[in-house]
């Protein structure tokens, strides 16, 4: 079996502090849910409920508007206590609606809806995606409709690519989700393929999960869903769009196929598609991996959107040792959490409480020209040189040296013995240079 890999750089990552990948646990329902109106890269959703109003489970409480914005729904039934405002890790300010749990659930514990989606047109499906606020269930949380539109605008031939590439151990929540909901993910892929008029459904599975690849192929055949499976390497950042597209292009060439434009989705997004279309359910919960060296009992939890991060940590037994930093998302691409009252959003794949040892020290030293950043850069850039140009504000020169091809995977920064913020600074330089 051919394994498709990107040619240069990257990292083999391991972390013994990730939760076990064998089961998920349902998190306690939050008595108070803080539902942010910004869970996507675009403008904040417009609030549709007033303070004191009663909301039902799955009710639309914020309407997305403009590019990159998506609808927001209440994850629990209850009463709106107040709206709060806080600063997100990326610097934007958002409002959130604080809902106190009250009344009966409309979805939880009730018989599940089972709508026949086969008769729906692509247009109808896209409308449902938009209404239910479907986004790619990882940062930055782009609306699914826009991802599909981008692909269909690029080419008449579209391939839906489901990335099941576990190049980062902190994708464990996705892994558990696949174990729990494979059928729903396969049907979700079929629905998304119809919505995007995709000619192919390709499951890209990393080479360490060959058994999973076999299971997917077998189950898809049983469900009558035509898929192709491609085995990729598992070196980080194989899952990144650029590296994934690189291997897909190799695959296309080897198999003499015309794959056209790629519409790339993760398993959590496809499960959300299934819930939205078949069960008439917005995104109310998601799988979140809670772990890190500071957490007593790391677990993969099924969490209602808006649940406090602090509550999830309590459910995992609290802290074993005082964490140095807590982040949402993988330690490689996540954002630091400054307050344990911050809520879980649609894009929270993990909550990581890092010990000082895991962080590996943050004292910045002078660059010694060791070249480790160059050795791991998957794009083949010279991060050290671009970093030094950025500090000298020679941003246009950095662009001449292909700084804009940096996609911010962070490999250079992870290996830098001088702890220099290489990729973060290069990104700033690109922004300044292209202004």
């Amino acid at each position, binding site marked *: 079996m051919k394994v498709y890999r990107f040619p240069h750089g990257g990292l083999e990552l391991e972390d013994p502090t990730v939760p076990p990948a064998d089961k998920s646990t349902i998190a306690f329902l939050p008595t108070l849910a803080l539902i942010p109106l910004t869970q996507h890269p675009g403008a904040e959703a417009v609030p549709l409920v007033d303070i004191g109003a009663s909301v039902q489970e799955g009710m639309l409480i914020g309407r997305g508007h403009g590019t990159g914005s998506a609808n927001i729904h209440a994850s629990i039934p209850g009463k709106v206590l107040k709206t709060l405002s806080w600063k997100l890790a990326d610097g934007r300010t958002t409002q959130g609606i604080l809902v106190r749990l009250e009344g009966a659930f409309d979805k939880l514990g009730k018989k599940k809806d089972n709508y026949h989606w086969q008769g729906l047109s692509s247009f109808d499906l896209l409308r449902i995606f938009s209404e239910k606020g479907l986004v790619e269930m990882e940062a930055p949380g782009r609306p699914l409709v826009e991802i599909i539109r981008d692909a269909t605008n690029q080419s008449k031939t579209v391939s839906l690519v489901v990335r099941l590439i576990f190049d980062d151990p902190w994708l464990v929540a996705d892994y558990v989700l696949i174990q729990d909901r494979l059928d729903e993910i396969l049907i979700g892929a079929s629905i998304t393929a119809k919505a995007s008029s995709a000619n192919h459904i390709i499951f890209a599975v990393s080479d360490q999960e060959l058994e999973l690849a076999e299971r997917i192929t077998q189950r898809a055949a049983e469900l009558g869903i035509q898929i192709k499976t491609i085995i990729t390497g598992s070196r980080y950042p194989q899952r990144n769009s650029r590296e994934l597209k690189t291997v897909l292009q190799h695959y296309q060439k080897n198999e003499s196929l015309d794959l056209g434009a790629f519409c790339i989705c993760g398993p959590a997004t496809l499960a959300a598609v299934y819930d939205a279309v078949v069960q008439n359910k917005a995104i109310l919960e998601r799988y979140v991996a809670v772990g890190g060296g500071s957490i007593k009992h790391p677990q993969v939890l099924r969490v209602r959107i808006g649940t406090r991060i602090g509550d999830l940590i309590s459910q995992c037994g609290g802290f074993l040792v005082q964490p140095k930093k807590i982040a949402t998302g993988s330690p490689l691409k996540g954002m630091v959490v400054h307050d344990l009252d911050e809520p879980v959003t649609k894009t929270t794949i993990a909550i990581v409480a890092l010990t000082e040892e895991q962080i*590996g020290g943050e004292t910045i*030293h002078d660059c010694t020209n060791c070249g480790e950043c160059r050795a791991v850069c998957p794009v*083949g850039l*010279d991060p050290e040189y671009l970093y030094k140009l950025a500090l000298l504000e020679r941003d246009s020169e950095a662009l001449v040296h292909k700084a804009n091809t940096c996609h911010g995977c*962070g490999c250079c920064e992870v*290996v830098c013995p001088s702890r220099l913020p290489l990729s973060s600074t290069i990104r700033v330089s690109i922004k300044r240079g292209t202004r």
Partner: protein
Amino acid sequence: MSVIHVARKPLIHINDSTSQRMWLVSFIAMLVIIQSALTDHYASLIVALVALFSAVFMELAINGARGTFTLRDGSAVTTALILALLMPNGVNPVIVVLGTIFAIGIVKHAYGGLGTNWLNPALGGWLFVNASWPKHFEKALDGSVLHQVYQAVARGVIDPSGSPLAILKIAGHKVSSQDSLLTSLLNHSLFSPINAELPSGYFDFFFLSGPAMIADRGIIMLLIGTIIITALRINKPLIPAVYIFVYLLLVRVFGAIPFGGTLGNGDMLFGLLNGGTLLTAFILATDPGSGTKSYQAGLITAALAALSGFLFRYFGGTPFGSLYGILLTNTLIPAIRSLEISLLYTNRRTL
């Protein structure tokens, strides 16, 4: 230079920090110094301490002038201890002070500090004092094994087999009783069954007690240090491997000629165990600060350093030719780096 405030995205680091690496190299250098100090009434230790205090003083003075504090990164201490390894054990401490001040004050900080210098600071300091006060060096190394060989060759002493050990014997150098005992043991048990014989004199290189460069006097600890450095991936292991391979190949093929021998009879052990060869291969050739950007260019540069080091030592008549070899390649580094940026990174073929 501007200050950019960024929200760091990768929150973890998986490699040892720069300061950990520096302190590890310093620790290994200290081991070598201690081995040397055990046989010279602590003269090597005095050289090292003088270098250390001078380096710390100089670093703090420059830090004070610049309003920074870089002592914690360990680079000043590492530079001082590597410079001490390059010094003869009996050198005048004033020479050590001057060498260290030049290494830290000029070579390291004139270009902006750690990582910005194209020349290894310790090597720059060594070159400065060696070129400025050659007689002090000569005096400190007078009677050393290497000097005895080179002086004998200069007097016209040759050996038909091209063995520097044979020349040493002709020059009147006495092999220690421990060496004779260990050599005869090995010859008896290991070499005689295969009709080979190890000449006496090699074991003395592991326990040099006469005047010599400190790195040569602590060769056992240096060998242990190279294993630690390689095992902990502090350096790029292929660079010393290429250096040693090219160097020993040249020694084997051409190394007997200067001593009166013929092609293919060079003494590789002699070439390896003195003249700072191991220090050059594992510490100086792998110094990232004065190295190339890419591993590939690093290997080519290591081969070039080995070639020039061999030529300087065997045909240029300087016992520490390997150090001049590194000096030569260091001068090429700015040009090599600029070529690498253009060929390997900016204009790299992408998919």
